């Protein structure tokens, strides 16, 4: 097997606040190879976003190491483009088109009319051609997320980090975006690290699915998927199997029972 593009080894991530020390992930290890569609799946608050931020270079592990192409990640860079979970990731002072162009120009990926063309192409792809000249504050939540997706994809980075990119989208748009992602992947075979809550989405989008346990996040299982919700030997569908594996005896569930 070739050397992994992204090598996450025994990574523990922590936040220090004035109240307490929060361990977001604990000794998480996984490898992403070039061309993988790697999905991270786990309950709310288990450290998925934190893990992605660490890969993005925004956060240093307190333990373990993250290597990209063999060199440890030390700072953010345009080789790992991130689509954040938050709605405020668009620059409010730039229109939709300018937001996408900005990414291309700032990272010196493209410039001038090339940047413009590519920006418009990806904006049309996410169905926002009509809003290309609108400012972010005039967009709906889902529209904002789509702009962020267009911006991330337009960058065509070595590895695309996406944090629940489709969570704010309606069923149809979501399905279209998933298809679009897969189609693009067919074209360019880029690498994507994808966080989601939705098991069907994970099964559809991912070639590899990493299951994390609830807070603090630890690796539960790594599942391989061929994109279809296939049944395994024991007749269990993949999504059902993941569901079981993921949610067996969750602390969240216990707490809910306790409160009820």
């Amino acid at each position: 097997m070739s050397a992994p593009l992204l090598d996450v080894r025994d990574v523990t991530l922590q936040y220090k606040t004035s109240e307490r020390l929060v361990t977001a992930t604990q000794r998480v290890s996984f490898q992403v190879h070039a061309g993988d569609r790697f999905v991270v799946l786990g309950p709310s608050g288990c450290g998925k976003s934190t893990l992605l931020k660490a890969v993005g270079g925004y956060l240093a592990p307190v333990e373990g190491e993250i290597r990209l192409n063999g060199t440890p990640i030390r700072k953010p860079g345009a080789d790992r483009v991130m689509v954040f979970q938050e709605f405020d990731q668009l620059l409010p002072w730039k229109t939709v088109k300018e937001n996408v162009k900005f990414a291309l120009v700032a990272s010196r990926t493209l410039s001038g009319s090339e940047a413009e063309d590519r920006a418009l192409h990806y904006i049309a792809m996410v169905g926002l051609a009509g809003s290309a000249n609108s400012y972010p504050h005039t967009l709906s939540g889902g529209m904002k997320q789509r702009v962020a997706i267009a911006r991330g994809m337009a960058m065509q980075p070595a590895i695309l980090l996406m944090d629940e990119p489709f969570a704010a989208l309606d069923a149809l748009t979501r399905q279209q975006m998933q298809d679009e992602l897969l189609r693009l992947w067919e074209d360019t075979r880029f690498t994507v690290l994808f966080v989601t809550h939705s098991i069907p989405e994970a099964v559809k989008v991912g070639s590899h699915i990493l299951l994390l346990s609830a807070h603090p996040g630890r690796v539960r299982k790594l599942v391989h998927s061929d994109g279809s919700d296939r049944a395994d030997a024991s007749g269990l569908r993949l999504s059902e199997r993941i569901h079981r594996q993921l949610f067996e005896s969750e602390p969240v569930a216990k707490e809910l029972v306790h409160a009820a």
Partner: protein
Amino acid sequence: MPPDARCPATSGTLEAPPLLNEPPIAGERPLVLVEQLANVAALRKILLLMVLAVLWQAYASRLDNPLLFPTFTATLEALWEGLLSGALIQRAAFTLKLLLVGYASGVLLAGLLTGLAIGSRLGNDLLETLTAMFNPLPAIALLPLALLWFGLGAGSLIFVLIHSVLWPVALCTHAGFKSVSPTLRMVGRNYGLVGPRYVTRILIPAAFPCILSGLKNGWAFAWRTLIAAELVFGVSSGSGGLGWFIYENKNQLEIPSVFAGLLTVILIGLAMENLVFRSIEVCTVRRWGMHA
């Protein structure tokens, strides 16, 4: 930065934000003329100024002590005379020129210092310490150094002006930079922005509402300082700005002219606010939805 020329035309629209905090008016109905007029900010403000002028006139008339507080009309007369004779315009022009140079330099320096401060921990300490130290110092404190370094004349005045602009602008800008949303910071870093590019492309626009209030404050303090400093530093032959104009007239007990000088300061302040700062606001933070 404003990508098209349409933005000044939108100021009318922006007066009534779509998201009302006041009880919304159900449905649309033709507005009564009074209401329509009340919607024009310029008109409302002019009315307000007229009310203030009437109050001034009334109070001064009742006081009837022209040496202490002349009436509005007497002041207007003196203003008119000053304008006709050209003295006031020439003085104001002199002061404005200095002001602009000092203001621009101060703002630039503030930008540099804050850029440095945001980039490194030492820079941050430096900015915080210097601001805490020098911001409260009155201009006279700088007098000896100003004279040593720049001698009499414009150089020293500009030095003092910079002192009065630099710290408040730096303080507001720094506070603005620090409260930029972490997500936006991360986005900027993600696309490889560091150093000055990071500051100019992410921090400055993101912190613009704060920066704008810093700029307004800086402008106001530049005026205050310059008027006062002109008295301290005196004037070289012939020159003399608005501050000296006020001082001279005070000495000659031409109190209406003193007030005419002050009125000039007020008028320039109003013009700056309503023409320059408001346009900037409309073309930036309001357009971007960063301002209610």
